[in-house]
């Protein structure tokens, strides 16, 4: 992140409401820089399109040297863990931090949203002690395909060591097949639990996947033809003689079949709509997204285009609750924090992991195999509210984490004074959230300060600015996207 808001007193112009909707749904949240980018692109939709082909990412380049552990191979991460040099759980902390920083600062915001989407669908938990040597590599793989084609993504994900270890496929052999991945591939990753398969299909699915192993000592993935089940495979409409000891070609054909299955298209379309439109997406929206997905041979971009073009998208303003991660990322972006290279656990880039975790969510940190829930109810607990609002206040005050980070001077949020309180609130709202807050929020800020909206304000103390910022972050304007 660079640049941002200009001199105090200058009132920024808000984006149009449709443009705002695009950035609330497809970015980590408002920044002045993003608003300028949307303007340059010619509006929200044009900005969205321009994001579908990613380019240079100076932020990512800068982060590379911050977390050296993330550039190591799975084998190197394993070796260092076993030798007691760096625990794999520490590498997972780094992955979580780096992921948050990418969502906060990458110029390729749509890609970050899609990485999160696919990571939930093809979930491998952050702290899975079987899979974690391979988790960083798995993330790199997802990123390569995040804006590409699902069939390629599915093939790489299913045969990846991280997924194989997470769902036990590496222990599955022709003699003792383990059904964990064979089942979840159908239930979670593709056609869904009502996709039309039965227990025989699960068994066949598991046999098809045998052969992908990981060496216990070196953590090197390999294919073991002696573990692979040879013989005819039939799963739903997929039939294959599977007569070769090397079953990789047949497995790829099977995964291709599942990726292109209509039930898979429906399932992925539904998940896209729940994530980017609303919890109860209209049927014809899902249908048109699924159709675009299938027609394009499982390319994600036409599906996303169908989604934003449907009238239901434009009508879904603020239908979604920000998850704790969304909330945190948007707050950090809005507050315009300048995060520097971490040098200790207290540095912002490191300590933010505890702060965001305190809100109840960290990237990929979800133990069961189904990925984070995307519905509003899941993220609407009282504990979530208490911790979120506590963190809003701490961030607004710039109290912690306060090392290797620069918070804006509190007075720099304000317009030129004197001004009416209502105008002050609008001004801060525009700079923090990218929009003027609705009347109920303006009144809430006034109540917090114990002043009337029309009161003439000569000066505002730092403590009161903290109150304005925190109240705006506590508001429905921030908590819903």
């Amino acid at each position, binding site marked *: 992140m660079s640049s941002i808001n200009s001199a105090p007193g200058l009132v920024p112009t808000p984006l149009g409401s449709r443009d705002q909707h695009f950035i609330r749904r497809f970015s980590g949240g408002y920044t002045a820089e993003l608003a300028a980018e949307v303007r340059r692109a010619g509006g929200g939709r044009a900005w969205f399109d321009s994001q579908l082909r990613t380019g240079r990412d100076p932020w990512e380049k800068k982060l590379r040297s911050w977390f050296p552990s993330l550039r190591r191979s799975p084998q190197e991460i394993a070796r260092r863990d076993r030798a*007691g040099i760096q625990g794999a*759980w520490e590498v997972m902390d780094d992955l979580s931090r780096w992921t948050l920083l990418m969502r906060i600062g990458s110029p390729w915001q749509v890609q970050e949203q899609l990485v999160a989407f696919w990571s939930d669908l093809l979930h491998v*938990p952050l702290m899975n002690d079987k899979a974690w040597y391979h988790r960083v590599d798995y993330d790199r793989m997802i990123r390569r395909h995040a804006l590409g084609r699902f069939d390629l993504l599915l093939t790489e994900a299913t045969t990846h060591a991280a997924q194989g270890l997470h769902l036990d496929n590496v222990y599955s052999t022709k003699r003792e097949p383990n059904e964990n991945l064979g089942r979840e591939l159908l239930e979670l990753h593709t056609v869904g639990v009502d996709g039309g398969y039965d227990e025989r299909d699960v068994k066949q699915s598991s046999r098809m996947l045998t052969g992908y192993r990981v060496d216990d000592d070196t953590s090197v993935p390999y294919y073991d033809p002696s573990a692979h089940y040879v013989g005819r495979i039939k799963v739903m409409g997929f039939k294959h003689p599977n007569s070769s000891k090397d079953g990789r070609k047949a497995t790829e054909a099977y995964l291709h079949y599942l990726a292109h299955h209509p039930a898979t298209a429906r399932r992925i379309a539904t998940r896209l709509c729940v994530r980017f439109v609303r919890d109860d997406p209209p049927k014809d929206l899902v249908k048109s997204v699924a159709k675009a997905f299938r027609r394009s041979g499982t390319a994600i971009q036409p599906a996303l285009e169908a989604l934003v073009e449907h009238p239901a998208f434009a009508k879904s303003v603020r239908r979604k609750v920000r998850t704790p991660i969304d909330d945190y990322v948007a707050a950090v972006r809005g507050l315009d924090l300048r995060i520097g290279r971490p040098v200790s656990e207290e540095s912002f880039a490191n300590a933010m992991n505890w702060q965001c975790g*305190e809100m109840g969510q960290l990237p990929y940190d979800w133990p*069961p195999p189904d990925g984070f829930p995307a519905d509003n109810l899941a993220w609407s607990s009282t504990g979530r509210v208490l911790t979120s609002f506590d963190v809003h206040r701490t961030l607004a005050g710039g*109290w912690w984490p306060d090392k290797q980070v620069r918070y804006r001077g509190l007075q720099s949020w304000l317009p030129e004074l004197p001004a009416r309180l209502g105008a002050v609130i609008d001004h801060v709202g525009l700079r923090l959230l990218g929009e003027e807050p609705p009347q109920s929020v303006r009144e809430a800020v006034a109540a917090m300060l114990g002043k009337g909206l029309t009161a003439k304000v000569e000066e505002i103390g730092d403590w*009161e600015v903290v109150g304005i910022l925190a109240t705006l972050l*506590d508001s429905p304007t921030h908590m819903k996207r």
Partner: protein
Amino acid sequence: MNHETQNCHCPEFALSRRRLLAGAVAGALGVTVADVIGDAHRQLAFGAPPGGNVLVVLSLRGGADGLSLVVPRGPDHDLLAAARPGLHIPRERLVGGNADFGLHPALEPLLPMWTAGTFGAVHAVGLPAPNRSHFEAIEEVERAAPGSIARVGWLNRMIGLSPNAAPQDALQVGSAMLPAALLGSASALAAYQLSDFEFGELGRGDGARMRSLHRMWDHESGEIGRAVRLAMGATTLLRPLADADIPTDAYPDGPLQEVLANTAALLKADLGTRVVTIDYGDWDMHSGAGTVDSGWMTEHAGHLAASLSAFFTDIAAIASRVTLVTLSEFGRRVEENGDYGTDHGYANSMFLLGAGVNGGTVHGRWPGLTTLNEGDLALGQDYRSVLWEVIATRFPEFSGGRATVFPGFVPEPIGAMRA
């Protein structure tokens, strides 16, 4: 001892560190409010009546070594000694127990309760099938609904049985995140400590932040609107506790100190809370578990015992209402590994303390150490049988809800609770 330098992959390190930092931050901010504001009381008018029974579930995360906590005395002791030349506890050092088992000597602070019959154990409990992954096993234990991937916990299903379920019915103390056991459609609260149940003051102070929140959230539709209003209600209801100076001096220093002191204060305030969940992690002793005289296991078990003893002393006035059970996701391998530790195992022991406990003995079918499950203590009984016995005896109002709390499960009698 710095456990982090050891080769142990435990997320609970992270949790304890997180808690430490959060505590430091809370201390640094320190603006509080004393007033009770607004009409939020009304939103919490329902909920369980005061004076009811309470279940405290203490999760020993990381896989506590039940074979070192509740140790066989008979011929199985010889097998254990042979499998664990470095780690086993000599027969003559065992305390309490019964004819067949003795307790780890570090549990001595709880011996008065054992003798009084308010502290007992069940051995060889576990999941219906072994799961040696921490994360999966924890999920499975807490969802307690094999075959379902719905992320709804058994305690949430239990409190949800009440038509008047209210958020203060169930609380996680010591963490802002609800454990899997409390996730689900019934509301539950979570906080590091009771003082978190407030919205730190802003602006004018004197309740201005609460008034401000009401202004912008009272008419906000949807799930998050409801959650904010519930949170406002909870902070109002718990405000006297949030502001109270909760004494911790009677508790030993360590990770359970504030958590148990807060739990005791909450239960003594008698707000209708039925369920409290607490975590006590760092049991994943793959290496360097120490000896019977000192080290990780002995210190950890000692802290557990001294803390629980202090807790039951603290709540003496309401002891007839409070039952505490311990759960751990799995036990440890019978054979020790090369590093004075043990790897992930299967069946485990469980403790029950307090009201209604048929204590002073070790219950359960004991499969012995002759026939193992892939090197681990085999299953004697499903852990849900023990939990159901607690629910059935302590919460008669839920006893018709067995199929909801533990779907598809038929418990067997254990005898760990007095009927």
